[in-house]
């Protein structure tokens, strides 16, 4: 005769509810702060130290939002002579040359 084992699923436990019941929230999400518009946001790595005074040292990661309007004086990534440049926009930025406006610069300090 064939036999089969029936699994014993274990006892059910119950106890006091957590005191924080109903007060849970999600941990802080950096993405929500830095990337409000994910479909239009791209990251770029910075080469060169020219913009250190603007909070953009070499190696920084720029958050570039293509949905923002490029205005005079904004830091932006533009296309020029076959390369991407991070620079302040002048009076009349060529609209087709502007990739997007820089909305944040991420600088890591290291963990050592």
């Amino acid at each position: 005769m064939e036999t089969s084992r029936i699994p014993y699923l274990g006892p059910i436990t119950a106890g006091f509810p957590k005191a924080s019941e109903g007060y849970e929230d999600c941990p802080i999400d950096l993405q929500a702060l830095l990337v409000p518009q994910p479909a239009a946001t791209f990251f770029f790595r910075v080469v060169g130290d020219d913009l250190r005074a603007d909070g953009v040292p070499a190696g920084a990661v720029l958050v570039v939002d293509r949905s923002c309007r490029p205005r005079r004086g904004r830091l932006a990534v533009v296309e020029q002579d076959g390369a991407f440049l991070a620079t302040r926009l002048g009076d009349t930025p060529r609209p087709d040359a502007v990739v997007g406006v820089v909305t944040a610069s991420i600088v890591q300090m290291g963990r050592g």
Partner: protein
Amino acid sequence: MLVHVDANNFYASCEKVFDPTLRDRPVVVLSNNDGVVVARSSEAKALNIDMARPYFQIADLLRRYDVRVLSSNYTLYDDMSNRLAAVYRRFTDALEIYSIDECFLSFDHVPPDRLDAEARRLRTTAGRWTGIPVGVGVAATKTLAKLANRLAKKVPANDGVCVLGDAASVRDALGRIELTDLWGVSRGFQCRLRSLGIATPLELAEADSHLVRRRLGVVGQRIALELRGQRCIPMEVIAPDKQTVCCSRSFGTETRRFDDLRQAVCTFASQAMVKLRRQDLAAGAVTVFVDTNIHAPPGVKQYHNARTTGLPTASCDTREIAAAAVRALRRVYRPGYSYKKAGVLLHRLVKRSGVQPNLFDRRDHGRAGRLMATVDRINRRFGRGAVRIAAAVPFGMAPSGLTAGRTVHWRGRCDRRSRCYTTRWDELPICYAKSA
């Protein structure tokens, strides 16, 4: 009204967004394994470079015209496709993702006099936000919207947007195209239409509905009715549950060894399982197929075969699926053949929450599920294949050091693949700091 929106030269356009040296230059993208041309930039089209031509046949021509040749980078295209869909979703929730570069949208909420403006806003927003140029067609039915999009691209004065808002504009549009330009009309179907005396799209739209139904069946009737503005092909707003997930490649070099095939099959199974878990699905059966090189010179022995292995309970565990795939492979493998391609197909897919538990199955599925979730997380963070079953090898962008000196004979060619600019921290596009 319905909208059909698609990206222009999608793969080539994705590459141009992230590589400023490609601006105004002809670009072609090759299929997996660098086999044939699958995408051309507008500059490459202007050079009359054919689609689907094998690369080796046109390599000289491409070099002569200084065409940039790239391997396909599906990681990048997939991300850009998702971004476009997110932009479209700002215009309507009723969105059907038809393919990687095409969507249907409902504009039923847009008043007729606003259609053109709204369609143009869709086009400029998509272009501005993602860098990808798109074409937009608006009409009463899917078939007409697709046709409108064709005219949006073909007629320069339309500037990428075409609205077929009334009977007169539909009539005019139908007069500008061939039968085979219509969605669903193949060459064979065109012949059958001709035999009924229908030679143009306009004649199809105006043909007697019962005659069309009798002689061409439901499919023909559906096309005819859609051309008259009657919706017969519904919007599939929620993507239907996937029926199968497949992963297959041609090998860089052919192989006769079972071990190579086993390694390939285990790797394909692993990749297919990642796709499966991302959609929260489990597979109830695995099919493995192997092919020799169909382009081999006459006289070379050919062999194609496939076998399916079923699982007692639908699974999302790579170890279980890979083991089943290897069992299937043992049954199809024949020594003495030179194999060019293998693949793994997962089917009998079910939602993970809907898996029928087997009363006599004592394995701990919760534990396997947690293990797989952890593996997927690690691989997202450290690169695909950083953690994998021992029988598989890392694929695609994983650092070559991970192969630990083993020669991987079968790995596909992708010599000219661009970086994964939007999905990997170590592959971001670079920009040079320049003070004003």
